[in-house]
């Protein structure tokens, strides 16, 4: 399923939950649960031993998954049997991508039905080879923009990103935070002024309130650590689905309000 097309088609604020592939034996049940809760796309983390942009929760999820013997191939094999009607994007680090080759990696994604790819340690300067490989295999390479990114560079990221633009809401790593960072609004606004591609805020969006707040500036949100904390604490797919559904509802109500206003 093409990521960008699907997101552009959604007539609501985008909700993109995250799960670490292989974190539990039944980890794909969380994908189903996310879809049931109304996810517009799902980000699947392919665990890496040294996740540079992840906070302790996601790192722990990665460690747990790796200890379970998780590999990229196993995750993709499981994913390829699913049919949940929601586009998927893989999130991982470049060492895993280049281990075989960017091309082989993207081909494997595409074959498993994963239409997007997010690699936070590949900035613009280092992206060319991966961009080409993704394109060749029909995978949308999602680029990240940060509060520290200067305007001209923001424009180039917006232009080269595919699927959506991942707007990093805060100067920091993944993890739950008390409030949405001030930087989120300005970054989303700057990006939206530069492109008509979906702009999605991620990192540090921990509650329905954060999501609602973020959705006022951006086209949607990624929610990661606050879901993974629940998963690590033993929440069942149903429990996680119920919580995510409340976020969905809050986003939809806010969107309805904004249309009326």
């Amino acid at each position, binding site marked *: 399923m093409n990521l960008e097309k699907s997101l552009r088609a959604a007539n609501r604020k985008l909700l993109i939950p995250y799960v670490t592939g292989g974190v539990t034996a039944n980890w794909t049940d969380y994908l189903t649960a996310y879809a049931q809760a109304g996810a517009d796309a799902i980000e699947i983390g392919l665990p*890496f031993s040294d996740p*540079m942009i992840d906070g302790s929760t996601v790192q722990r999820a990665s460690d747990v998954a790796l200890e379970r013997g998780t590999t990229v191939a196993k995750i993709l094999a499981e994913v390829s049997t699913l049919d949940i009607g929601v586009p998927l994007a893989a999130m991982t680090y470049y060492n895993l991508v280049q281990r075989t080759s960017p091309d082989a990696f993207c081909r494997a994604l595409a074959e498993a039905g994963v239409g997007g790819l997010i690699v936070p*340690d590949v*900035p613009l300067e*280092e992206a060319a080879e991966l961009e080409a490989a993704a394109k060749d295999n029909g995978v949308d390479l999602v680029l990240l923009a940060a509060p520290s990114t200067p305007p001209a560079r923001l424009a180039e990221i917006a232009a080269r990103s595919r699927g959506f633009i991942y707007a990093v809401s805060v100067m920091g790593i993944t993890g739950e935070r008390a409030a949405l960072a001030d930087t989120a609004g300005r970054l989303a606004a700057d990006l939206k002024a530069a492109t008509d591609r979906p702009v999605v805020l991620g990192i540090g969006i921990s509650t329905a309130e954060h999501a609602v707040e973020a959705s006022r500036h951006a086209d949607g949100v990624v929610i990661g650590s606050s879901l993974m904390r629940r998963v690590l604490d033993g929440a069942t797919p149903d429990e996680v689905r119920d919580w995510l559904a409340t976020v969905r509802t809050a986003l939809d109500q806010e969107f309805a309000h904004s249309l009326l206003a």
Partner: protein
Amino acid sequence: MTELSPLPRFEVATAMSEPSEAGRFGEYGGRFVPESLIPACAAVEAAFRSAWADPEFRRNLDRLLAVHAGRPTALTPSWRLSAELGINLLLKREDLAHTGSHKINNVLGQALLARRMGKTKLLAETGAGQHGVATATAAALLGLEATIFMGSRDIERQSLNVFRMKMLGAEVVPVDSGSRTLKDACTEALRNWVAQVDDAYYCVGSVMGPHPYPWMVREFQRVIGDEARRQVATELTTGVPDYVVACVGGGSNAAGTFAGFVDTSAQLIGVEAEGGAAVAFGRVGVMHGFRSLVLQDDEGQIGEAHSIAAGLDYPGIGPEHAHLNDSGRARYVYVNDDEVVAAVVRLARTEGIFAALESSHALAWIIRAAGTGELPQGANVLMTLSGRGDKDISALMEVL
């Protein structure tokens, strides 16, 4: 005063010159960091280019190195050991530098740069603790704060250095993830830099990390090679040594040493720990912001390095070394823990020098190779003795 005069610098020809604009040494290097850090890396690069071209910055650094760090460090002909090995072994004594290793050279450079950039805080990772102590030292000297990330396993192994850092006013943050050693401390330092990039300067401890760090750290460490080049010239009738040997963790003391001899006929040898030998056992990979040779499994998960020397417990190698290896200009070998412990004791008993376990890797290879085709009888050998062994006493007590 003779020892304070600035050193004349040698212009180095092709190898070990500036990396490409993208920070590449051949296919290695680069800047594989989150977008949030790109402006920070670019700012470090710009500041370094301007500082390195600024005679006043160079003068200030040279003066700090002389009056505070005690440069130039001595070049010691090893008399008794040379006779035993049948070679002529000269030791470049970074163990005599302030704080006990070559790490101070790099850190003084970076700390001056941080001040020039208006930063108020240094962040650093450390393995053996030597880079952490050096960073804490430079921070105290220049009135900066310092936060040092250190794997909790290394904290146990290197409790003396932890105490030293605290004495110097630095905060030491234990890192409990992964193998709880240097590589995890690096990851953690990078993560933390993202969150405080306005005030904090990330002071990388070796020739690794995103561009411009591998290049910059090599430039700050080339003082080892430049000094040794001059000193060796007065010790040897041949002017240059036949072999130049240094241990390699990330590879900063080796890079700084090699830089002084890359334009000569000297054979350059980097010695890794068997359990962290990225050249012998690693594959091309991307970690901590750069592409290089990295210990990893078939899946691309980073391997854990194992060495009695905490400072060599690093699964990667600086990108320029990977390039020097490809080009054949330098050769990389490895030794095991037992050879290293024997080398520490042997140097202590023959020359009265208690070397760091890291440095003793270079010596262990020399001892093994001396008299063989790899290092023939009568060879003139320069070895960088990167640090002193005081920090290693508890590790040695366990094995001796």
